[in-house]
């Protein structure tokens, strides 16, 4: 089973994404901020990460930079899911960027395409 790490400070979004992705056959783990996420990424491998930008503590961009600097983790695909319109400007190297509220079909299609 492919494993997805969901990083978002909003518990409603975390639950929504967890239910959506679990219902569609993916394993999920959640983190509520970048620090917790980095601890999880250090501890176990993930096939995909969904990343919020505006979270307490580190911004999502900082997490992405750290990930990109790590030889073993830099290839984990990251989908940015943020309330900020134009979030592709924040992390141009993300595999996809979605603005909340997003279309679940669009997200699932992106996830399927990446993990096929």
């Amino acid at each position: 089973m492919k494993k997805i790490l969901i990083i978002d400070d909003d518990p409603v979004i975390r639950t929504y994404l967890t239910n959506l992705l679990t219902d569609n056959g993916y394993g999920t783990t959640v983190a509520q901020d970048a620090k917790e996420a980095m601890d999880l990424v250090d501890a176990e491998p993930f096939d995909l990460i969904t990343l919020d930008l505006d979270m307490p503590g580190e911004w999502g961009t900082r997490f992405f930079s750290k990930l990109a600097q790590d030889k073993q983790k830099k290839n984990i695909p990251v989908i940015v899911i943020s309330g900020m319109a134009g979030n592709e400007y924040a992390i141009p190297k993300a595999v996809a960027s979605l603005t909340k509220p997003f279309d679940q079909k669009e997200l699932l299609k992106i996830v399927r395409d990446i993990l096929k």
Partner: protein
Amino acid sequence: MFKKILFATSTTSACDPAARVAFTISNLYKAHITVFHVIEAKEPGGAKTDADEKTIPGVKEKIETYYADYLSKSKNHAIKTVPGDPCREILEELQKDTPDLLVMGVSTGGEAGLENAIQNTESSFQKIVKASICPVLIVNRPAASFWGTISNVVFATDFSQTSDKAFDFATLLAKKTNCELHIFHAQNVSLTPGSKEFNQNAIEERRREKLSFSKKKYVSKMEGIANYSIEIWEGSPYLEIVKYAREKYADLIIMAQDSKNPGSETDELGSTIKQVILRAGCPVLCVNK
């Protein structure tokens, strides 16, 4: 920039600052202005009665007298008076008349009424701002500056999709008026020891990242605007916006009204915009989705 303005008024001193702004904009842009007054229906639910209808000529006369100075200088105006529920009638008039701008004050009930109008989700003020199909210019404080000329506009963004719409409006205004456009974001920082936001290095880092993001997001869309600035501050967003606007001598603050479902009576006006309306020393223009 503006062709049709709807000025919704209670024809009391509470709407005097809004009247000044509404007529000034109308004269500046040679826009048609409709002075719109709703005679609050006495029947429960705002049902109109013959008795209400009969008061229309008298109220119209009162409006003509109250705004005589402004009306004498205005070449393109109309006065419209209808009985009914103020919120419903104003929203219906917006649908019928399709103005480019709705100008309104907030409350006739002094400080307590003002607080109630802004905080209470059931107030006519909140319902109108949430459901308006055009930008709403709110002139709250009697001391507020007004659009004699537009020199400095603050666009306060939370980077949301609705903010993008407000940005489009702000850039259009800046191009038409040659004003300085100040793009501003206040990152919400709760300075509680031990909280995730408390670390100053993290605050500075985030500020730099948001500034870089803002430049990438907005600068390419501001061709033709000679004077602009982009700043990110940290703190309590509404306070920072009010302070920033004061520092920039802003004539106007433009913000997105970010209700998830515009028109829904259950949704509340965003807490930041409510506080900015309450406290800003200049008019606040709300743009809906």
